[in-house]
């Protein structure tokens, strides 16, 4: 089990990372409410244990792909807080110079290859990175995060088939948060556990409590043994819940308040904090300090972002390709 071999510092660092993501997303939400950040934002508040549980065990050079709700995945993989916030704020200092925004983050220095605005769109990309990693024999794996809504898309099934057929070192991480946009999973499929699809394609799989960091790490650790040994793909379904709407501004009326309060009790940060306390690795004072540090760090990122320049107007049509084609001018 991953948890037992770890030093207390390592475990506390995981809590720090979850808090950083939580504080980051809450700050983004606040800035959105103030209209200092605009755009279409999908926050993963409540799902931090999946991002940190998986990415905390990866190498810097492993390939991670996200979806439309992936600020947390990028941060968990090690993306720079300032550049990520600045990107979401559309500033020149952002990772992508403001051309990506919230949904299409690329943080290559951290091995976060790309997110996407198309549900399930990066699943095939992860196969390709895994194929290349296998060919180049440098031991990397590819990890792709996607939601339960992707499980009804064609590329999901095609990808599971090819990953299995070619025994690619890819780890599929399904964040089953129960809702595809505004609709519960039960209205989209009769398949209750998406890990069942993995079984169909002969891929080892597990369904874990995605709000339990230790459970996610344990499943990831087993998956990595298989993928690093080039013994094929692995599928991990993490049952979780987003505590915000599908997008910022979504009143989420489709969700019962009782359901929300149940999930709040299962908040992954609180759970892991309680675990650390029970193991005498953390005190209340220490927990307070971690939260304060995280909030201070994202305040700094917000300050950096909002004081950064907007992209220059001439950037509008640069970097379309690596070649700068000059239009005919007469």
């Amino acid at each position: 089990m991953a948890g037992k071999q770890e030093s207390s510092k390592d475990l506390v660092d995981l809590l720090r990372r979850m808090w950083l993501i939580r504080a980051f997303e809450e700050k983004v939400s606040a800035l959105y409410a103030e209209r200092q950040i605009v755009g279409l934002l999908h926050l993963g508040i409540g799902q931090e244990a999946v991002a940190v549980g998986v990415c905390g065990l990866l190498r810097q050079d492993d390939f991670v792909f996200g979806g439309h709700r992936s600020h947390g995945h990028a941060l968990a993989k090690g993306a720079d807080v300032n550049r990520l916030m600045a990107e979401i704020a559309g500033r020149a200092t952002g990772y992508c110079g403001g051309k990506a925004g919230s949904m299409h983050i690329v943080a290559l220095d951290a091995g976060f290859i790309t997110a996407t605005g198309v549900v399930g769109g990066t699943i095939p990309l992860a196969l390709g990175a895994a194929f290349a990693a296998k060919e180049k024999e440098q031991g990397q794996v590819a990890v792709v995060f996607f939601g339960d809504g992707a499980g009804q898309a064609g590329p999901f099934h095609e990808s599971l088939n090819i990953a299995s057929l070619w025994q690619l070192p890819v780890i599929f991480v399904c964040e089953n948060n129960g809702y595809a946009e505004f609709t519960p999973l039960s209205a989209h499929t009769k398949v209750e556990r998406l890990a069942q699809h993995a079984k169909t394609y002969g891929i080892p799989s597990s369904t874990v409590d995605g709000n339990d960091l230790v459970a996610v790490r344990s499943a990831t650790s087993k998956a990595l043994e298989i993928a690093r040994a080039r013994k094929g793909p692995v599928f991990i379904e993490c049952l979780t819940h987003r505590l915000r709407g599908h997008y910022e501004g979504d009143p989420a009326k489709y969700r019962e308040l009782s359901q929300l309060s149940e999930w709040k009790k299962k908040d992954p940060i609180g759970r892991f904090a309680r675990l650390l306390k029970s193991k005498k690795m953390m005190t209340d004072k220490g927990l307070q300090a971690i939260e304060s540090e995280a909030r201070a760090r994202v305040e700094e990122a917000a300050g950096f972002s909002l004081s950064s320049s907007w992209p220059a107007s001439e950037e509008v049509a640069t970097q379309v390709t690596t070649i700068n084609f000059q239009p005919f001018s007469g």
Partner: protein
Amino acid sequence: MSEQTFLEAIRAGLHEEMSRDSAVYVFGEDVALGGPFGVTKGLAEDFGTQRVVNTPISEGTVMGLAIGAATAGLRPVIEIMFIDFITLALDQLVNHAAKLYYMSGGQLAIPLTVRVQCGISGAMGAHHSQSLESWLAHVPGLQVVMPSNPADAKGLLKTAIRDDNPVVFIEHRGLYWGRGDVPNGDHLVPIGQAAVLHAGEQVTIVALANMVGAALAAADELADSGISVEVIDPRSVSPLDIGTIVESVRKTGRMVVAHEAVEQGGVGAEITAAVQQHALYYLDAPILRVAAPFAPVPASPALEKEFLPGQKRIVQSVKKLFAHS
């Protein structure tokens, strides 16, 4: 120089680039077996099925896989067997391959070549005969090339594979068995440069892919009627070499654009718009387009013949331009 078919020239280009660069991989349905027309025949024998990879019939996912492999250091060449099936892969091609370099602010180049076969021949009907280059040319971030002869096919393919951006390489099926001289050695043709294939003074015919042959034949026929024709093959529809076309039209004062795709919204419209912008006052007659009717491609050989634009319609259109002079 050596004489080769269009198909052999493509195969030779693939072989040379795979020999030159171990990062070049070929993916596609039945590619290790040569594919339905034998373009990739022999590659698996020389480079192994690890680099010439047969895929399931999952165009969208294989396109995405090739893009992902490109992000991780490979230089994939993916074959879509018929352009009609590129519809299944457009999400990945348009939303990821074309946009990742821009969206990533230049962090992530996608060196991807998409080989795809198109066009009408052999009464294959509406799902195996389309010409969809204008859809692709509408997407920023994609380069779209459409060779008309074996030498350009080889030279453009080699350039496409070495290019750090996604290039869609469209092969018209009707050209596969046509022969032509191909330069020996490392023959490269730049993307985005039109070729003037027949010099003339009174009318410019801009033709794509298999319409180039029809235009050259029309030029010979029209010469008998005393009309001097210049034939231009853009070779790439994105980027489009407007300069060469405009220069020609400023000289000739007349233009016909010929392509096998349907007329509405076709590349001919783009060329026409550019020429009116840059050469309107040089024109002696309206610009005419020779293209397919606005209908799906019919299966019956009788209807297919009716559908297909060619030499006869090009000649008729050119003669119309001279009717009042």
